[in-house]
């Protein structure tokens, strides 16, 4: 017995599609749609555990740096790591410079994120609002985490006023500003 029968007949889909496409085009025109704009995030959410590294204290020591490298190798996904499925197989080399900046003897500060050395890694604006629903209470502004984007991931920096005390790397594709051509 065969399933998924091999269809020999035809359905007049194209004329129907053509009519629908005309209507759709009119609706899109009315909506004023041109360049596709992805959501620009002013608030970064902390994603579930399958899309983030562990939170590491700053400055990084050798062990913490190695753990972050490994997490980046597997695309911040512990399920990938469990099955040895790589997403970025040379993460250690790619991120070495940034991890060095976050490691001893450096003691990175909030102001450092605007310095040329860090702007090379995080060229955009630092997002001042990060929401972590695991917190039992909303942190005060002086202690609230901030986030910076390296083009692929959001690096969340925990702080005590100006001093950066911790880092966690997260994948939040919904907050990426894709540069797409006009539709």
């Amino acid at each position, binding site marked *: 017995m065969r399933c998924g029968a091999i269809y020999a007949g035809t359905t007049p*889909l194209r004329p129907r599609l053509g009519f629908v*496409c005309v209507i759709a085009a009119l609706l899109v025109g009315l909506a004023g749609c041109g360049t596709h704009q992805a959501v620009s995030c002013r608030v970064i959410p902390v994603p579930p555990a399958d899309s983030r590294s562990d939170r590491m204290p700053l400055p990084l020591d050798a062990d913490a740096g190695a753990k972050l490298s490994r997490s980046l190798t597997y695309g911040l996904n512990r399920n990938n790591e469990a099955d040895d499925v790589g997403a970025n197989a040379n993460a250690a080399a790619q991120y070495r410079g940034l991890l060095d900046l976050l490691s001893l003897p450096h003691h990175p500060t909030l102001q450092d994120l605007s310095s040329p050395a860090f702007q090379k890694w995080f060229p955009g604006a630092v997002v001042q609002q990060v929401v972590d629903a695991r917190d039992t209470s909303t942190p005060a502004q002086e202690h609230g985490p901030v986030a910076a984007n390296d083009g692929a991931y959001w690096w969340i920096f925990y702080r005590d006023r100006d001093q950066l005390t911790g880092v966690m790397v997260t994948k939040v594709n919904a907050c990426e500003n894709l540069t797409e051509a006009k539709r």
Partner: protein
Amino acid sequence: MHERLLESLLRIADVRLVACYTNDQFGFASDKRLQVFIPDLHLLSAARRALYTYGTNCEQMLVDVLRALMDLKTAAAPDENVTVFHIGDYLDLWRESLTPGGDADVPGRIKRDHETLAELLEDERLNTHFLLGNHDFELYQLSAYNRWERRFFIPGSAPSVMVLHGDYFDWVEREVPEDIRDVAVYLFGQSHEAGSPVVGKMADLARKYNSEKDYSQQLQLAKPATLGTAQAGDAAVPREYNVQRVNQTVDGGLQFLDIACQECINANREFGTNLKTVIIGHTHHARIAVQEMPDGSPFTLVDTGAWIENCVESSGGPASPNAQITALSANQVRIYQLQPKN
């Protein structure tokens, strides 16, 4: 673990071996690790499916296969591992909706009409590693699909195999190389993760490719894909069977082989990688194709086929619905074609 998978499949379906190839450079010498690749499904909602003359094949059989994979994975010994991949184009957002990226409910609408299949494929116990294809790329920015990728390198600790959907090779054929160089760097360069502009470009290319095609009567295949002569599933599996080569191939058997090989040569030269195997879907034509690299070693392209559209054996006979499963273990890759038991 090849044999345990095959035993499971033989309990579910009539199985034929489409192709197999043994190569020490696959990097998966252990017979305690099994990598399984599920190809394009192109699921639609029931309402949209009714508008097409073709659709996903043998859904109940695929459900049974997924249950068998779940059993295999959960019953694995501590030193064994079963890794499941979906190669992309799981959900056909492009054919489901005129605004596939504009409505976050589109994937849900499709999956509501394939509840059992979707729940199994996305079950945490199966831990399926999903790729985005050109028909479901719009999932990229939906939070429920945040962990999906455009390519994987396996094994992650020492990559020798690259797994990607395969639509990239269509772009290479159609676009000016300089225009997609950064996409190549992203896909093949192990030291590069996609920046937003590159992902945006990939989204554009996927949409452009889809918009230039007429999917009213077919997706990829104007006629059934030629598989070569398949072998009975319960026959002894040789080291090599039905491998496509320049001097001996079926119609379409070498598609993308040159391009994929050249991309790996370029990446290996530029990034110091050692990629010699690429596993894809996208074409809906199950095959294993091999050619020589400059250093004389074999380059292997494994095309995992599909669960949509049709195939036919070169020896003749009627066409069959595509229903292929690919497995890699002990440095041997096998592609099986399944049919419901009579």
